[in-house]
């Protein structure tokens, strides 16, 4: 019965009588008409769309802002400016504070954590990973070893001035010699010292070679990396006696590091980011759990 659209109305067409006149191979198309008001509402939506597209256009790339001077682009620009204006008083407070002071204030800390998470995703996650887990050559920011110091102020300095950033004179700068490439050590010595380095974290494969390497280490490496390979954050010399290896901890990786040196680079962010953003990043890194404060 559902095909007669005014059910039971007097004179209603029975099934099959009311056709559109279309016929294909003897199959006729039943006319199931729309209510008039429905049809006109449909036409009205089309008319509305034609007016709307002039008032609030969405043509790509024309730069035309419609009769009202508004598009989704101008709207979002306004909203972003409004958001910035709304956050500005808090950001101004952050600029004058140390990260430690921000962390001590629960409200500011929550604000900084939220902002820092976004800033980290936009600027840092590309190399250091989405959760700061790092990658070979790009240090993990969630663990407890820090090349240049894990205190909040140290981290803030590293972010602001970068690592070996060519355009910043306060950048964290060091240079490990290319012991094999520059002929300072022979291949055999490099092999021995690598065995000794592995033994510092209890993984010596060849005790004899490691013993020979100890002398080479004391002469060439200990000045920066320490007698026990404990590292030196003042110089950015990584600890060699622990479980964390920036470029891999197997013997081949150590041999390669000794032979050809390593020198990762991070840009100086002071010229790229708002000081408030840098402080928020430090607060976010603190929340990752690895900072030494």
């Amino acid at each position, binding site marked *: 019965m559902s095909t007669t659209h005014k059910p*039971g*109305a007097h004179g209603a067409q029975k099934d099959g009588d009311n056709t559109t*006149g279309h016929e294909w191979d003897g199959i006729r198309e039943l006319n199931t*008409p729309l209510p*008039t008001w429905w049809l006109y509402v449909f036409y009205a939506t089309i008319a509305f769309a034609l007016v709307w597209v002039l008032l609030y256009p969405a043509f790509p790339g024309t730069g035309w802002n419609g009769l009202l001077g508004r598009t989704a682009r101008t709207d979002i620009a306004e909203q972003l400016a409004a958001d910035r204006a709304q956050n500005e008083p808090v950001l101004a407070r952050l600029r004058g504070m140390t990260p430690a002071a921000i962390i001590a204030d629960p409200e500011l800390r929550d604000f900084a954590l939220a902002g820092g998470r976004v800033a980290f995703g936009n600027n840092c996650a590309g190399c250091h990973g989405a959760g700061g887990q790092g990658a070979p050559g790009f240090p993990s920011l*969630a663990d407890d070893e820090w090349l240049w110091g894990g205190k909040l102020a140290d981290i803030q300095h590293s972010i602001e001035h970068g690592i070996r950033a060519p355009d910043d004179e306060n950048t964290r700068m060091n240079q490990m010699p290319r012991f094999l490439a520059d002929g300072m050590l022979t291949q055999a010595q490099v092999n021995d010292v690598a065995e000794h380095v592995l033994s510092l974290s209890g993984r010596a494969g060849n005790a004899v070679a490691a013993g020979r390497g100890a002398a080479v280490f004391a002469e060439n490496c200990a000045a920066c990396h320490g007698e026990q390979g404990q590292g030196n954050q003042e110089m950015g010399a990584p600890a060699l006696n622990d479980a964390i290896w920036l470029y891999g901890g197997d013997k081949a990786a150590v041999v390669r590091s000794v032979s050809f040196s390593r020198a990762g680079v991070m840009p100086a962010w002071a010229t790229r980011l708002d000081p408030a953003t840098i402080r928020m990043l430090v607060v976010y890194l603190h*929340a990752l759990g690895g900072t030494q404060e």
Partner: protein
Amino acid sequence: MGQQQQHHAAEEPPATFYAPRVRVYPQAVKGKVRRLRWGVLWLLLGLYYLAPWLRWDRGPGRPDQAFLADMEHGRLFFLGLEIWPQEVYYVTGLLVLAAIGLFAVTCLAGRLWCGFACPQTVWTDLFMWVERRIEGDRNARMRRDRKPRWSWDDRLRKATKHVAWVLIALATGGAWVMYFTDAPTLLRDLARGEASSTTLFFIGLFTATTYLLAGWAREQVCTYMCPWPRFQAAMLDEQSLVVSYRAWRGEPRGKPRDAAAGDCVDCAACVHVCPTGVDIRDGQQLGCISCGLCIDACDAVMQRLDRPQGLIAFDTLGNLARAEAATAGMPRGAACRGAGLAVRQAPNPFRPRLLLYAAALLVVGGAMLGGLLLREPVALDMLRDRAPLFVRLSHGGIRNAYTLKIRDRRHEAAQLAIAADGLPPGTQLSVSDAETDAAGRPLVATRADDVATLRLLVTAPAPLPAASTPVVIRLLDPRSGAEVARAENVFLGPQP
């Protein structure tokens, strides 16, 4: 194809792609179904308009509205119950119960929902009542609408009707909004013109939809818009009570004095009172909302003719078929009526599908009740950090980080200690800036009637026995050590 089309176009009148509405002018009717419908109508409207004003004391600082969907604070208050957004499954359960209940009622007695309780039916009925009070009954309204020119009286009546409709619609839209904020406060704000634009928008929206759907669209909502008539037939069986025309005693239709004719005198009273304009004598159909007004109309006619009532009645399709068979070939009259009624069978209330519906209602209702009774005041949700999966520390230990969400539905913040089970001895828990108790367990504060979010760092000494270790995080009362809430997760490390 084109030729065929032209051929047909020449033969048949040009096809139209829209159908002009056939206006329905339902007539007033009195009777037992109508009385029942008035009762249900005023009861439901009374519930709808008055429920937001019901108060329920929940203590100081808490909303005292008995039924409140507090959007702003994300709480659903239902008398003594308080539902959090996380527990939306109770609402889902309610909807499941409503759906099964609807199926069961439909199986028992047809479209009772459509005919008696659906808001579209209730408000349309109310609007039609207003229309009759102002514009007169069916014939007066039809006469007025046929007039080429309206007198001032006609115009006044039309205008009054629409004003009355809009006022009812406004009350309806206003009452709807009151389920979502404190009703007295909202009424005060409205009176002072201080209500928010959101509030005004929703009042306007529901005012407009009430006015349009109940005043103008009416039966079109049921015949064009509503999906329920399309599949409710699947819920019916031959033992469901439906509004039925007993053709076996009514046909053939004829004059009252015609001895060969059946009981139906073709007065069309049943059609004239129908709010959707259907003819029940055509049988079961989509447009019939089972309101039963045709029963009253026909009963009145039968009474005047001194014939037994019940030519149209709530009856089952099975009874109709049996009566049809029993009276086949009989002359119409008293003997035929007796034979038709004699073969009636009472519907079996223990049909398998009804038992299944009852079982489903019991299971879902029982699960919801059990869930509500066993609800704990504090709940813990735990999410493991996925980037990184784990952190290797310089001394060789492994650290996993978890985000804890502690829901505390109590109205005072409490301090809880966090403990972890399942990891080797020497495992340390830490929460940024949180103190620890004597056993080294972090002490964290919950937030009263709110969710506290914190990051828990779990550091286990290496080596771990497996790459993935099941771990249970427990929240403990710091004084008694009793467990308040727990969550299970895993602790990941390198492959051993």
